[in-house]
């Protein structure tokens, strides 16, 4: 089963993404900020990170830079999800180490297809 780590401080968004992804057969873990995200990524191998931008303590950009620095973390693809649709926001995400960018609210099919493509299949 492919496992995905959702890093988002909004519990509703986590629930939404989690239910979508779990329904599609992914194993999903959650972290409520970047720090918790890094801790989880250190303790387990994930196939995909779904990363929110604005979070307390450590935001999504800092999280991405942090995991990309760390050799002991499996360098899974990262999708940044953000409410901003502007080009500069995409660029910031990619500069920080994201591999793809989706605009919130994510469309169910889009998220699932991206998750399937970036993890190499479902479940």
């Amino acid at each position: 089963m492919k496992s995905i780590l959702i890093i988002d401080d909004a519990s509703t968004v986590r629930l939404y993404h989690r239910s979508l992804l779990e329904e599609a057969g992914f194993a999903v873990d959650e972290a409520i900020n970047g720090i918790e995200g890094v801790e989880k990524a250190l303790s387990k191998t994930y196939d995909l990170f779904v990363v929110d931008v604005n979070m307390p303590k450590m935001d999504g950009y800092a999280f991405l830079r942090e995991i990309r620095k760390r050799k002991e973390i499996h360098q899974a693809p990262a999708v940044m999800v953000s409410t901003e649709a502007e080009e500069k926001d995409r660029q910031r995400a990619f500069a920080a180490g994201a591999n793809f960018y989706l605009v919130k609210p994510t469309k169910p099919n889009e998220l699932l297809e991206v998750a399937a493509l970036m993890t190499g299949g479902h479940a």
Partner: protein
Amino acid sequence: MSPLLQQFITDSHDILERMSQALLALEKNPGDEGVIDELFRAVHTLKGNSGLFDIPTFTRVVHAAEDLLDKVRDKELSIDNDLTDELLESMDFIQRMVDMVEASGAIPDDFTDEADARIERLRALLPESDGHDLVFEEPADQVQPPDTLDWIARIPEAERLDACLASGGHALSAIRYVPEPECFFKGEDPLLLLRNLPGRQAFVISPIEPYSAQAEIDVYRSNFELQALSTASPAEIRDHFRYMPEQVAVYAVPPTALAIAVGEDLSDDGLRDDFLANAETLLAKGDVALLAVAAGAVLDLISPDLKTASMLRFIRQLALAGAEVPVLSALVKALATGEVPSLDIADAAAESLQDAVPPAAPAPRVKSAGASGLGRNTLAVQIVTTQRQLLDLPVPPDQWDGRLLAIGNTLRSLLAVQGGSEAVGALEAVLANCAEERSFLSLAFHLEALLPSGDDDIEDPSDSGALPASVAVAAVPVRSDAASADTLGDAPKAAAEHGDKSARVLKVPQEKVDRLMDLIGEMVVAKNALPYLATKAEEVYGSRDLAREIKAQFAVINRIAEDMQDGIMQVRMLPMSSVFQRFPRLVRDVARQLGKRVRLVLEGEEAEADKHIVESLGDPLIHILRNSLDHGLETPEARRAAGKPEEGRITVRASQEGDRVLIEIEDDGKGIDPAVIKRKAFEKGLIDETRLESISDQEAIQLVFAPGFSTAETVSNLSGRGVGMDVVKNSLEKIGGQVRLTSEKGRGTRIALTLPLSVAVSNVLMVKMNGQRFGVPMDVVVETVRVPRDEIHVIKGRRVSVLRGKIVPLFGADELLSLPEAPIANAEGEYAVLVVRVDGATVGMIVDGFAQTTDVILKPLEGPLSGLAGFAGSALLGDGSVLLVLDMKELMNGA
């Protein structure tokens, strides 16, 4: 996890718990039919619940258990140890599956084998003859699309036109939904589903079997099927019907299929022939807009009831909606032949519309798409494009490896799905080369080759995740809050950790709890109406039996209400840490401002009390802490001179003592000098000369709580703002608290607060005065006495009486409350005197008479009434009247 699934898991735990209790009860008492029924119902519910989710393994095991229990219920099988063991083991297994679902949202495949074994063993326990009964339900037959589109003709033309317009010339989704006859028993609501159908346009309903005479209709069986049109994608529609996929067929219908001409036939129709000739040339030129105009022109001239007009309306609408030429050609042809556009024509048109139909299969099943290359999967192309452009972005050296690995993993996954093993192999070689040369260059070339040339295949590059190819973005500095250390010391951190640990905790908005609390409060009060009723039943209606029954019922309701009260109180309990966590910062800041050194020790933060109490504690405690810092603790120099450590120490300690919570604030400062206090109090006129001589040191210290007392020689910035300890004492007493102060000169001060754990219900004594009732809180009441008129004396213009050897001043309730009539004595010439203890003094209030005591929910006076002194608040009584509750302290101070 979806709320639905969460609910399922919570329910499952509950049901399994009930089942194991029932099974154990049955083992002791095998014949108990009530328990057997309960057990069967539980397992039945569990099976029904599991059907909502895609966990067939789970459902099958539960189903087998249900079949077994069914036989037990029908007495074809009796409960014995073997059966109980088997069922208990199965339930453990089910429990494990629930845990699995809870943890991961699915049941792993490796559970299947054990499930099969379990089912086998459960089946073995079934009576022989019934073995064949246990054939599992085959999935219901999948509903197929209908053979013809005849049903569309039953939709009124106006609705078909609307649907055509809504389609924008693209294919519509058609739905055939055949609800199961038993659907109503499964909680399905076909009409609601239809009403909420996304993009719903038109629909028709038809009976499956002809309806029988009204009297014979079985209204609990569904006997109809629905045909509907929608602009939503098939995927959206399948999702809408996700709980009954087998009952629904979704298929595409081209808009031409809606163009069924209805109306009068006119054999000789010159205008139609003109239009047909015109239409042919327009369609040849592809001038759809002009075709709409032409159709509109003819429509203006002919009767709208004609069949020709009907078809022209469709041509016009579809042309306006921008339909493609082949679609319009089919309609024009249908107009010429006078026939309904046949399915063949429709299919031909549908083919040209194929692209407009969103992919039906759920996204994760993209494996089948495109055997090699990226195919037409635009998201895949977007992802590869993004990786390609990531290679052009600057990357900090310490993140270079991570970037390459992440891009590599992204592409590896994607190609595994889209490209196959060959493509992955090629990628591996390139990735290895990049790592070796520490350059993205070869990967960039590789991706260029992989991507389709030109932008044709990318639907909308501006909306994709793509970057302009040559953008160079400097790494944007982002503030990291990670390092910002918690300056508040260890206590709040510990508190936060404490909060995080609790796994199965409900987070409920405060308003909900408050509302429940209010309702329970009302319930507690409303139940008090029953004794009134009982009295009425006896005295007015003369039914003593009824009165007794009401009283018995009252006792039951009273007990439940009290339990409810206790329950909600538990819910409202907050740990002291929620106020304590403000202190470290406060103490640190104040100490710094005063140039003092202090260590704050917090203890017993986990002690709990009602939210209202805890929240009301914040300000008084802060005030006490400020006083300690300001007046109690000495400067480091003074401490050194006194032979104490430079760093002062303040301890705040909370603990629970019975039904009260005790909070102590202790400092090791200079303490309170009784001599200073006495002098101050005398100067301010708080005590007179004789008292000055006689007052003990401990009594003198309590004078700091006297109104208007301030010990500070100069009014300091911090604590001396005219708000003294009297305010602290008052606000604590308002919530039923008490304050005790002890101090030893040179050694420190200790303030002990005791507070009730909760405040919800107050016990009040009702007194009568001038035909009204007033409440007096029981905690101030000493006794109620009858004082003969001649034992009331007047000394210095004040009434007093000697009660139990002590002189007690008496006040008339009429004076205190400014009521018009003086208290009335009873027939024996005795006055009713309520003796209360206020601020250590015993005083009496003369009233007309006493009534009973009662529990009330005290609400503070609000609005214009809030300014009234002398009232603790109002309360609603069981008979619906409002009781004003007196604040004896305020009343007596005013006297």
